[in-house]
C-alpha cells in the first residue's frame, strides 16, 4: 500500500492537501481532500455588536468578501426587523444587488480568465511557467484575453467600490439597508465610460468569453464532458418564480434525475432541512440534506448547481445561453463537472446584464436607504456567492451582542463533491501508475479548481501550486518525496 500526498501550501484562504492511497496492485483505495479554514470567525464575532458582523466576517476572504458582507447584512436585516431579503427599501435592495453582481462579475472573471483559462488554452500538462495569466499576456494570440480579464475584473471592482466604499472589505451594506446612493457621475461612468470601461463592452466581452469556452469545448469534448464527471444533487437559491437569482430567493435542490428534493424552502428554516456531519480526518464539515441522510444527502453548489436548479434566467442574452446549456444535456441535470466553467461564463454575462439594468434604475440615485421594524433575536442570511450558496446565521442577545454564529461557506457545501471529483480523477489517472507525473497531479488540481474553492486562488495565481508529494508504504515509510 502506498500513500501519495499532494499538498498545496497556501496563504490566507487556508490550505488543502490531497492524499491518495494505492494498494500493492496499484488500485486507488481511498482519496481524501483536507481543507483547513474558516471556523475561527464564528468565534471571533461572538460578543461583538451585531452591526459589526457584516464588516468583520467578510475578512475571512479577500476574493469574494462581498458575499460574506451581504450574507451577514441579510441576516442582520432580519434581526433589526427589516425582513429577509425583500423587506428593504428599493434603494437598499438594489444597491446591494448592484454590489453583488459587480462582485460575481469580478470574481468569476478572476476565476475563469486568470485561473482556469490557462489550463484550457495551454493544456493542463503545459509548463506551469506559461500556464498562467501572465503566460496569456505574453502569448500573442491570447494577449487580448489577458487584457480583457484585467479590465473586466477592474470594472466589477469599481462597481463594488461605488456601492461598498472600497474595492475590498467595504462597509456599504448595513443592517436594514445600505449607507449610500450612487451618484449621477458614477452612473455615467459605468454606463458610458470611455472604451473599454463601460457596460456594453463588458457584455460584449462576456459573450466573447463564452465563445472562447464553447470553441474549446467543441474541440475538446473529452476534457470538458468527461473530466471528473460525477452524478450528484444540486442546491441553490432560486427566485420565487424559479428564475436564477444570486441575491435572494428560496432554497431549491434537485437530485441527479432532476427531481426536486427541496423546493420553495424559506431559508430562515435551513436547519430543519440541512445538517452538517463532522468527520475525524477533516476540519471542514460535510453538509447534507436531512431528508436523504448523511450518505447520499450531499449536494453541489455553485454555477453548475444554479444552472440545474433554476427554470430560466431573467435577462435576454444569458437566457439564450442558458437554453443552449440546458439543451446540451437534453434538459436533464448536468453533471459534467467541467461545465462549471460554462455555467460560470453564463453568469458573467447575466451579471453584466443585471448591472446594466440596475444602473438604469432611478432607485439607485435617490430614496430611503434603510428601514427597520420589530427587533428579532435571530437571523439567517443566505446568498448565492460566486462559489455557491453561503449561509450566515446569528443569534443576538438583548444587549445587541452576538451570542452565536454559524457559517456554512460555499466551499464547505462543496466538500463532498470535491472529494468525489478528486476520487474520480485519481482512479482514472493514477490506477496502476507507480510514477506520479506532473500532469497527473495537475489533473487532481484541475478537478478541485473546477469548484473554485477558496484555496485555489491563493495557490494558482502565478501558475504553479506549491506542492509537496510524498509516497509512503503501508507502514508510513517514505518511499519518495518531491517538492516543487
Amino acid at each position, binding site marked *: 500500500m502506498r500513500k501519495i500526498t499532494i499538498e498545496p501550501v497556501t496563504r490566507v484562504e487556508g490550505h488543502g492537501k490531497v492524499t491518495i492511497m494505492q494498494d500493492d496492485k496499484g488500485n486507488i483505495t481511498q482519496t481524501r481532500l483536507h481543507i483547513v479554514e474558516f471556523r475561527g470567525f464564528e468565534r471571533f464575532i461572538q*460578543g*461583538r*455588536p451585531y*452591526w*459589526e458582523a*457584516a*464588516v*468583520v466576517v467578510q*475578512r475571512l476572504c479577500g476574493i469574494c468578501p462581498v458575499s460574506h458582507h451581504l450574507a451577514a447584512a441579510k441576516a442582520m436585516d432580519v434581526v*433589526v426587523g427589516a425582513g429577509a431579503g425583500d423587506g428593504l427599501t428599493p434603494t437598499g435592495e438594489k444597491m446591494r444587488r448592484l454590489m453583488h453582481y459587480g462582485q460575481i462579475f469580478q470574481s468569476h472573471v478572476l476565476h475563469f480568465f486568470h485561473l482556469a483559462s490557462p489550463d484550457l488554452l495551454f493544456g493542463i500538462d503545459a509548463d506551469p511557467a506559461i500556464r498562467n495569466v501572465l503566460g496569456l499576456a505574453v502569448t500573442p494570440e491570447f494577449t487580448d484575453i489577458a487584457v480583457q480579464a484585467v479590465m473586466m475584473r477592474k470594472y466589477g471592482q469599481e462597481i463594488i467600490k461605488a456601492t*461598498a*466604499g*472600497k474595492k475590498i*472589505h*467595504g*462597509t*456599504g451594506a*448595513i*443592517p436594514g439597508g445600505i*449607507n*449610500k446612493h450612487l451618484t449621477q457621475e458614477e452612473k455615467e461612468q459605468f454606463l458610458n465610460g470611455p472604451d473599454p470601461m463601460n457596460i456594453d463592452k463588458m457584455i460584449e466581452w462576456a459573450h466573447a468569453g463564452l465563445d472562447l469556452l464553447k470553441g474549446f469545448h467543441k474541440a475538446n469534448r473529452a476534457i470538458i464532458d468527461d473530466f471528473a464527471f460525477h452524478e450528484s444533487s444540486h442546491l441553490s437559491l432560486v427566485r420565487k418564480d424559479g428564475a436564477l437569482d444570486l441575491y435572494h430567493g428560496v432554497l431549491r435542490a434537485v437530485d441527479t434525475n432532476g427531481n426536486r428534493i427541496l423546493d420553495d424552502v424559506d431559508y430562515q428554516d435551513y436547519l430543519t432541512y440541512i445538517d452538517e456531519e463532522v468527520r475525524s480526518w477533516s476540519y471542514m464539515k460535510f453538509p447534507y440534506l436531512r431528508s436523504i441522510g448523511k450518505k447520499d444527502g450531499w449536494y453541489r453548489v455553485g454555477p453548475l448547481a444554479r444552472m440545474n436548479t433554476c427554470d430560466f434566467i431573467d435577462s435576454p442574452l444569458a437566457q439564450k445561453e442558458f437554453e443552449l446549456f440546458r439543451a446540451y444535456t437534453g434538459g436533464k441535470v448536468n453533471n459534467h463537472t467541467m461545465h462549471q466553467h460554462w455555467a460560470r461564463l453564463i453568469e458573467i454575462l447575466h451579471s453584466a446584464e443585471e448591472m446594466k439594468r440596475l444602473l438604469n434604475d432611478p432607485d439607485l440615485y435617490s430614496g430611503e436607504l*434603510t428601514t427597520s421594524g420589530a427587533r428579532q433575536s435571530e437571523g439567517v442570511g443566505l446568498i448565492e456567492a460566486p462559489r455557491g450558496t453561503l449561509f450566515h446565521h446569528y443569534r443576538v442577545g438583548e*444587549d*445587541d*451582542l452576538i451570542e452565536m454564529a454559524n457559517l456554512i461557506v460555499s466551499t464547505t457545501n462543496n466538500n463532498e463533491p470535491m472529494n468525489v471529483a478528486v476520487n474520480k480523477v485519481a482512479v482514472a489517472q493514477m490506477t496502476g501508475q507507480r510514477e506520479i507525473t506532473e500532469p497527473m497531479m495537475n489533473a487532481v488540481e484541475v478537478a478541485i479548481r473546477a469548484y473554485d474553492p477558496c484555496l485555489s486562488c491563493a495557490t494558482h495565481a502565478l501558475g504553479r501550486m506549491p506542492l509537496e508529494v510524498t509516497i509512503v508504504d503501508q507502514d508510513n515509510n517514505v518511499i519518495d518525496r518531491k517538492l516543487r
Partner: protein
Amino acid sequence: MSNTIKITIDGVAVETTRGKTIFEAARENGIFIPTLCNVDNVKPKGSCRICSVYISGRLMTACTTQVEDGMEIENDTAKLNDMRKAIVELLFVEGNHFCPGCERSGSCELQALGYRFLMMVPRFSFLFQTRDIEATNPKLMKDNNRCIMCKRCIRGIKDEDGKSFFAFARRGHKVVINLDRKQAAKLTDDLARQAMEICPVGALILKGKGFDVPIGRRKYDTKPIGSDVEAKGGNC
C-alpha cells in the same frame, strides 16, 4: 499691559493673546500640535502627553501650559514627533484596536494620528489584554478594548448639576471607565450622541446605527488629522 504677546514656534514668530494655551495659540496660527485627551470646551487635563513641546529645554504639555511673552517653543521636531509616535504606538499595543471592524475607523483620532506619524510596524509588543464590552445600556455601548483612558467622557458629559455620567471602576491596571450605573437612567439620546462624539476612538458607540457614514465621507477620509489647522496657515 497689552494682551498681545509674541512667541516663537519652531523659530517662527507668531502673535497671540495672554491667557491662551500653547495649543490654542498654535492652532490660531495654523500650526498643528497633536492632542488626544484635550477636547474643545472641556477644561484641559494634560494626561496623555501627546501634545508635549519643549520650552527652554523642558517638556511641557501644550494643552495646559499658557503662553508667555517671548516664549520659544519647539514643536514639529523629529525628536518630539518620535515621542508622540511612541505614545500612539503604546496606546495601540495596550488596548485591542482592530480598526478593520471598528465603525470609528476613518474618524478615529488615534488611528488618524497613527497615519500622521507613519506608524508602520509594531515597535512594542502587544499586551493582548482581555477586555470586556459593557452593553447593558440600551443607548450606548462601551467597548473597553478600545478605550484609551483619556477621560474626555468623564470631563465632558455631565448632567445639569455637573455630575458626570462616566466614572472609574476597578483599580490599578484593571481600572476601566464605565457609564455610571445610577446616572445611566438619565442618559438622553442627545447626551448619548455627544458621548460618542467626544470619545476620540470607538470606545463609546451608539447602539443600533453602525457604519451609517459611508467610506469617503468619514472625518479623516479626505482631510487627514491636522490638515484643517495647517490649511489655515499662519496669520503672521
